[in-house]
């Protein structure tokens, strides 16, 4: 390598400098310190063994630090690697260090795109995984998340960009995360296949066996059933065998069986379990999990759809601006109702106002700098913050009024049967209390709020109310 190296390439302590970029050269697993990746612009893996390459790629891409997992990764010595997992997670291949100049444009492009991204500390693990996946997709200009049939996957299909974060035994979580992301509008999807997972550990590595319906043993023998037409005797073929020759003789009428279809036939088969001696015609089918060894009846296996996902425009924006929470996260906050429920209740309130002369309001409280706020605090504290917000609001409104999260930064609440000006006053009071709370709880952090109050108008739909209420928020 020394001889063939171009003169403008400098290698010091496994770091290659070329054209103003530094490349971390990894040629051994033992010496790898993943943290070093963040101090370089890209990674080059020097190795021919797919297992070795897979392990290196996995350690880089499964990091939680965007400075590490978003770094361009290349393979040196360009052997033909058929592993789809490696291929999806690497950005290119070079055959020698002389070719390093060819990957420079790719490195430049990837690093530029990484600079577009804002990173937030997402509320939940699911939100973190979604953010990580979509930011990676964005930097690589990949908009499709294809499931790849993969023998090392715990669910038999891998979404390399997302699956890399999970051990094989936990890979089923990937499907739940993708499901949540689709419900949030990050992805749209289409059906590809269906997999069946163990009812105990959700692993897809199952071995299907025909077993005795009585004792579950797969150790059995099978015999043909013979029907002798002249006398109507029906029994397994062993009944007809004699000890003298290979011919078949009827045990009922002693006649010799001569011609299948003419004087006898074989209308079915009979299985006999070698474990419990049970005789039966239909096996049970069982699926034994190779992970936890549970012997599942096929009817209890968990059927899951494997879908192809496509990043939506909303998903692309979430990749750039950061993805904070899923609706699942904010639904779990006590004292609130789901946003869909809120809309239904709003519809009934509007309907009620159509028939009475009342005055009801909806209000919105919006955090104008969510990325700043959430990126500075961990997921548990984020949840705590949202809970505190709800507690303060709840203490200022009547128990008949409802609170809901439209998103992790926008809270909508109802204030029914009070004049609009009173509602505004209450909202001002709430904001003052929230600001006081923030300033005591998070001393070094500024949280900015915007608010709006709107009287309900029975001529407008619930959707239009919410749209008008939140249209001016930043």
């Amino acid at each position, binding site marked *: 390598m020394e001889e063939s190296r171009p003169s403008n390439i400098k290698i010091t302590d496994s770091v290659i400098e070329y054209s103003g970029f530094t490349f971390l050269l990894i040629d051994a697993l033992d010496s790898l310190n993943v943290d070093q990746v963040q101090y370089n612009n890209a990674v080059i893996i020097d190795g021919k063994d797919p297992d070795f390459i897979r392990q290196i790629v996995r350690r880089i891409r499964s990091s939680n630090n965007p400075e590490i997992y978003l770094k361009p990764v290349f393979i040196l010595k360009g052997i033909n690697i058929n592993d789809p997992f490696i291929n999806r997670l690497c950005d290119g291949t070079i055959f020698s260090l002389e070719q390093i100049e060819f990957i420079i444009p790719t490195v430049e492009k990837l690093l530029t795109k990484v600079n577009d991204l804002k990173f937030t500390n997402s509320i939940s693990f699911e939100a973190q995984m979604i953010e990580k996946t979509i930011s990676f997709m964005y930097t690589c200009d990949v908009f499709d998340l294809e499931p790849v049939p993969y023998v090392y996957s715990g669910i038999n299909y891998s979404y390399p960009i997302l699956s890399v974060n999970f051990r094989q035994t936990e890979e089923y979580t990937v499907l739940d995360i993708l499901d949540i992301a689709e419900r949030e509008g990050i992805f749209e999807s289409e059906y590809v296949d269906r997999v069946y997972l163990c009812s105990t550990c959700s692993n897809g590595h199952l071995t299907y066996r025909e077993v005795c319906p009585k004792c579950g043993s797969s150790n059995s023998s099978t015999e043909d*059933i013979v*029907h002798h*037409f002249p006398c*109507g*005797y*029906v029994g397994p073929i062993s009944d007809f065998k004699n000890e003298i020759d290979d011919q078949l003789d009827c045990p009922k009428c002693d006649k010799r069986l001569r011609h299948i279809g003419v004087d006898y*036939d074989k*209308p*079915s088969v009979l299985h006999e379990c070698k474990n419990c001696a049970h005789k039966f015609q239909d096996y049970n089918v069982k699926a034994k999990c190779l992970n936890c060894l549970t012997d599942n009846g096929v009817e209890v296996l968990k059927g899951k759809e494997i879908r192809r996902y496509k990043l939506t425009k909303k998903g692309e924006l979430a990749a750039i601006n950061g993805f904070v929470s899923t609706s699942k996260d904010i639904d779990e906050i006590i004292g609130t109702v789901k946003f869909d429920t809120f809309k239904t209740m709003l519809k009934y309130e509007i309907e009620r106002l159509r028939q009475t002369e009342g005055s009801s309001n909806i209000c919105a409280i919006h955090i104008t700098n969510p990325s700043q706020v959430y990126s500075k605090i961990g997921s548990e504290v984020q949840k705590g913050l949202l809970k505190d917000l709800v507690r303060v609001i709840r203490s200022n409104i009547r128990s008949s009024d409802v609170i809901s999260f439209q998103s992790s930064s926008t809270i909508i609440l109802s204030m029914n049967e009070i004049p609009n000006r009173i509602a505004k006053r209450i909202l001002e009071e709430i904001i003052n209390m929230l600001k006081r709370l923030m300033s005591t709880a998070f001393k070094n952090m500024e949280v900015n709020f915007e608010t709006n109050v709107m009287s309900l108008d029975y001529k407008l739909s619930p959707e239009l109310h919410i749209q008008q209420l939140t249209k001016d928020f930043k």
Partner: protein
Amino acid sequence: MFEEIIDNYVRFLGSLTVDHFIRLFWFFIFFEFVRYFLIEFVVLNLWRLSRHLNRDIYARAREEFFFENPLISVIIPGKNEGKHIYKLINSLKEQTYNNIEIIVVDDGSDDDTPTIGRDLERAGLITLFIRNEIRGGKASAANFGLRFTKGKFIIHMDADCSYDNDAIEKIIIPFYVDKEVGGVGGNVQVRNYDETLVTSLQAIEYYDTISIGRTVTSYLGIYRIISGAFGAFRADVLDQVKGWDIGPGLDGDITVKIRKLGYKIKFEQDAICLTSVPNTFKKLTKQRLRWDKSLIRFRVRKHKDVLFPNQAFKFANFIAFVENITYNLILNFKWYFYLVDMVVNYPSMILNIIITNILLYSFTNFLKFVLYSLYRPRSHTQYSYFLIYIPALVFYFGYYLRIVRTIAYLQEFFFKLSYKDPWNPEKTSVHAKRLKL
């Protein structure tokens, strides 16, 4: 015209002497009235008396049966019977005797029977569901099921039947009353008795001719057919006769085979099974042609050795056969002889003879129906429902069934048509015919 017939008939009755009456109605007096009313009635009373006297033996037999608590295997063979099975299983789950295993044998069904059977087996409602992909006929299905039985007694049932909740108990007790009993026939009654005229007439026939008739022959020791719809057998006896042979008529055939071994065959009036009978004359004709042919095929041909003295000769079997052949076969043709006798010798009186015969038969039918109700087990319906149908019985028994029977006998005598009956697969029937089975 009508008045003239009435006048003529009254004059005929006025001129009738005893000798003349006997000469004109000898067939009714000596055969029908004597055999099917007088003898039957006397025997019924003897049977009732014996039942009363032996009630302690019966009670002890019941105790012994319940104390021993033997496993009883129920075999239900059939093709495309899936839709009926659940109703049947339901009536079996209600039984007063519970130590039973239920084996359903599917004889090559091409409907959803396999799915239903497997589901019932999985749900634990039946013990075993077995299936032959290729139809082999009822005998082969029953034999296949027999292979899997583990019980001391075997009960053969039809899938389209349902059973009184004490039916299994009642059909097994006779085995404990008399240890020489090899098989017991249950009492088959009509479920769809009010569907059509045909089913109502058959219901009466099942009440009187079949149920009472079998009670009488059973008491006399000449009962000869254990119905396939409900029959119980000792497992060791079925093993000795090596199961069922090819049908149609396999239920009568296996009864003869058991009798030949020297075992007694009993009819148990209180073991009640309900079945659906053909609801049109066309379907009934088809069924009866099949039944009646088996008299020729099995009594006159296959088991004719019963009539001759040999090692296996049994007097009761001989009488059973002679009675059966006499009253079904010979008298059937003798009736035509009577008809010819009347037409030839008394042509001017033929109308009056017919009217008198109709009146005589109707009177006897009413008398029998009312009187026999004292000897029948409890019924699922009111007997009074059937009273309006009694007059039609003359035509049903006297003409319709007689003609069907005659056709069946002739078809079997001369053409051996039972071997072509699609009820049995052709592949087996050709062998039965060749081997004279």
